[in-house]
């Protein structure tokens, strides 16, 4: 056998090993998540937070809502945030130098007036032009500042916030009224907790009225359905798995809650990356580990943040490329953690995993396809073998997704219609025939863009939440 063929076979073998490792770990995640779910069901049985009663002893929370050019949705969002059920909280809206009518819409909707309140710049940020308050809602503060990006807006929000905990919510997300009480619980039950993340679910096609999700439906759009399966697999059970191993490396920028003092101490968010949410968590890990502190980051699967996902290919592509860039930047900025025993599980397990199996995976995946084809052509592999392998690979992928849907069924079962759940299973199958390859391609582009220094967020087409009234009008 010629050397070239030998090499190709070795590469094939490596790719197969890689593939097994990746999917094997994901399956392991689901198994671990299963354990976490059983624990969750257990505590739910004995503590019962159907309708949480307010605690008399609580930590007040600041909710920071960064906004950039959100004039369509900002008022609705702020209203729904103001109606959250929590004993004491403030809402800090940060207008990050929007070029549209975002600030004007809020000013009018809430009758804002400018205050002469002073505060310390605990974290450096772009200049704050003014801070506004409202008589009708004394716990609302609106910060108008020079544009500086999401990280900078969050830092400004932290500066202006006065409570020991802060929660960051995206301007286009909706969280359930009781979610705040639930997401603060870890901070009450466990003094070691420094940050907690909630889960993000797909809101497209759900009925949202008055900030409450009335009906949870599966979108009719194929692209959204693919993403729904993905979110279940990666964002719910993936994170639950990691969290159980004390290796939570991302807390979603859409819904996370942090101890203010810890974030200030670590220097706040970085403003030069699009992955500021992950980057902050990594940096916090580093700080906690180097202090030798006993700490916890928690992931909560129940308080849900509903968000609109992109419905067209172009926006989705931009989002995925941006996520990959953010991932790369976060890892690069904290590369000292790689395989560093000082950082315990995160350093030895999580970081290398994310580097190899998340960051580099598009490269290896797509190369894998190429090599397979080449091998076939060159006769290094025979067709039956390749087909058998492909079939196994696809089945493994399907198993991964279907097991996530199964986990969803035994835990949160948010989709009331069996039809929707079965549709999701169908898409769990379909996603292996094109969607996954597509996302891999976008992630590859993201990686390339990162290497060639592309920055920024790009524009995403924003959609209104489908409120019940709108739907009725259409009918």
């Amino acid at each position: 056998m010629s050397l070239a063929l030998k090499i190709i076979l070795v590469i094939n073998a490596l790719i197969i090993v890689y593939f097994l490792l990746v999917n094997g770990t994901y399956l392991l995640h689901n198994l671990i998540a299963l354990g976490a779910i059983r624990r969750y069901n257990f505590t739910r049985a004995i503590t019962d937070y159907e309708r949480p009663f307010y605690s008399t002893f609580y930590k007040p929370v600041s909710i920071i809502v960064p906004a950039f050019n959100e004039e369509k949705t900002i008022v609705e969002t702020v209203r729904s945030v103001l109606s959250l059920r929590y004993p004491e909280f403030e809402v800090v809206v940060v207008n990050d130098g929007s070029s549209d009518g975002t600030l004007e819409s809020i000013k009018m909707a809430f009758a804002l007036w400018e205050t002469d309140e002073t505060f310390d710049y605990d974290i450096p940020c772009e200049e704050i032009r003014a801070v506004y308050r409202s008589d009708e809602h004394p716990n609302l503060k609106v910060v108008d500042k020079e544009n500086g990006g999401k990280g900078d807006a969050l830092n400004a929000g932290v500066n202006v916030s006065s409570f020991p905990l802060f929660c960051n919510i995206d301007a286009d997300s909706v969280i359930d009224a009781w979610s705040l009480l639930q997401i603060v619980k870890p901070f009450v039950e466990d003094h070691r907790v420094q940050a907690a993340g909630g889960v993000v679910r797909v809101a497209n096609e759900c009925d949202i009225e008055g900030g409450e999700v009335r009906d949870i439906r599966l979108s009719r759009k194929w692209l959204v359905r693919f993403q729904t399966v993905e979110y279940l697999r990666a964002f719910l059970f993936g994170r639950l798995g990691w969290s159980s191993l004390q290796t939570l490396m991302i807390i979603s920028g859409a819904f996370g809650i942090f101890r203010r003092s810890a974030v200030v101490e670590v220097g706040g968010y970085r403003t030069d990356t699009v992955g500021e949410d992950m980057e902050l968590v990594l940096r916090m890990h580093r700080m906690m580990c180097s202090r030798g502190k006993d700490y916890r980051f928690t992931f909560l699967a129940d308080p849900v943040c509903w968000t609109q996902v992109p419905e067209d290919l172009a926006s989705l592509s931009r989002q995925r490329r941006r996520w990959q860039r953010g991932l790369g930047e976060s890892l690069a900025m904290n590369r000292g953690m790689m395989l560093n025993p000082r950082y315990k599980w995160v350093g030895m397990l999580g970081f290398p995993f994310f580097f190899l199996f998340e960051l580099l995976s598009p490269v290896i995946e797509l190369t894998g396809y190429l090599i397979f084809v080449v091998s076939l052509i060159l006769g290094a592999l025979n067709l039956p073998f390749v087909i058998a392998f492909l079939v196994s690979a696809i089945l493994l992928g399907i198993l991964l997704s279907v097991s996530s849907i199964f986990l969803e069924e035994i835990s949160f079962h948010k989709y009331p219609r069996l039809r929707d759940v079965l549709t999701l299973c169908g898409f769990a199958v379909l996603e292996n025939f094109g969607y996954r390859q597509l996302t891999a391609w976008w992630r590859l582009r993201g990686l390339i863009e990162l290497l060639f220094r592309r920055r920024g967020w790009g524009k995403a087409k924003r959609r209104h939440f489908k409120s019940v009234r709108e739907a009725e009008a259409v009918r």
Partner: protein
Amino acid sequence: MLTALIYISGGLLAIILMLLAAIIVRRVRYDRYRRRYQARTRIWEPLFFSYLEGEDTGGRIAATLRTEEDYLSFVKFITFYLKNLSGEEAQAIADLAFRTGVSRRLYADLKSRRSKRRAVAATTLGLLNDRNVLPYLKRMLEDRDPYLVYAGAYGIACLREYSLFMPVMRTLLSRTPITYEGASELLVRFGEGICPTLADILREALARYERVSEREGEILGRDSPAKENRLRESPGGEPGSGFQVDLGDFVEVSMLVDILGYFRYADAGELLLQVMEKSGDEEITIHVLKAVVRLRTPQAAHRIAPLLDHPNWVIRSQAIRALGVLGEKMYRPDIQARLQDRQWWVRHYAAQALEALA
């Protein structure tokens, strides 16, 4: 190799189909169970309401409880009302549980091999105010699982078993990672009866502190290194002061202050003020100020007034707020001076306090 792959594929396919089947079966069963539960509650509700009105002895309900599922559903049914009602009606529900044999079955569940069943039975019995479950709850306090410890503690607190108050507090703070807020939330369920005990703990700690600082006071200053060495990081995450309660594991004074304030335990007013002054700790001061506002201790205003110039703005604000509530008009000029404070919140509270004192 090929055959291996074929077997693997077959295996994977089988697992997938099993999961799909499991999903469908679970869903169908769950839907059916929900429908059965709703049917049951439709029958129980009017009977239950009648019972609460004294029109029924509970016999008709007892007649409907035949199967295991009946019993479990009924426990679920009454748990809701137990959590929302108190007084005569809650007692009536407890009687009903006894009369229909539900209590008996809950006790049987306490011996169940499944820890979830045991925990649910224990907490339900606690909700039913059934004191016979106390020994079992006590055993739960010693469990390895912090959730069971918490559930046991919660049950004991709801039953107001004062004799177990100290063990509960100790266990909670040493064997679960709970915060002071979480612990306070649970401990107040014991009721005001714990206040004298808490006051005693504080008094003892104060006496011990005075003895210690008397010895070291002249040699060491407030921020001396020896005192630093006694600083322990309290579970709250912030460094604790040297002034702590020794229960084997340190308990934060602030928590005791909060609970005394919550119950408006007036007898502790003087004690709290002394604690504040002797410890000189900022965190404790803030908690005491908040508590004193609720206690309305006479003459407290005079002890609080010196804090109007404190370097920490939170303390200034709380002191102002307290003076406003306590209504001691002689400090109005001092508060008025605070209208020029550099901190917005201090100015804000000063304005509010002046309005209250007008």
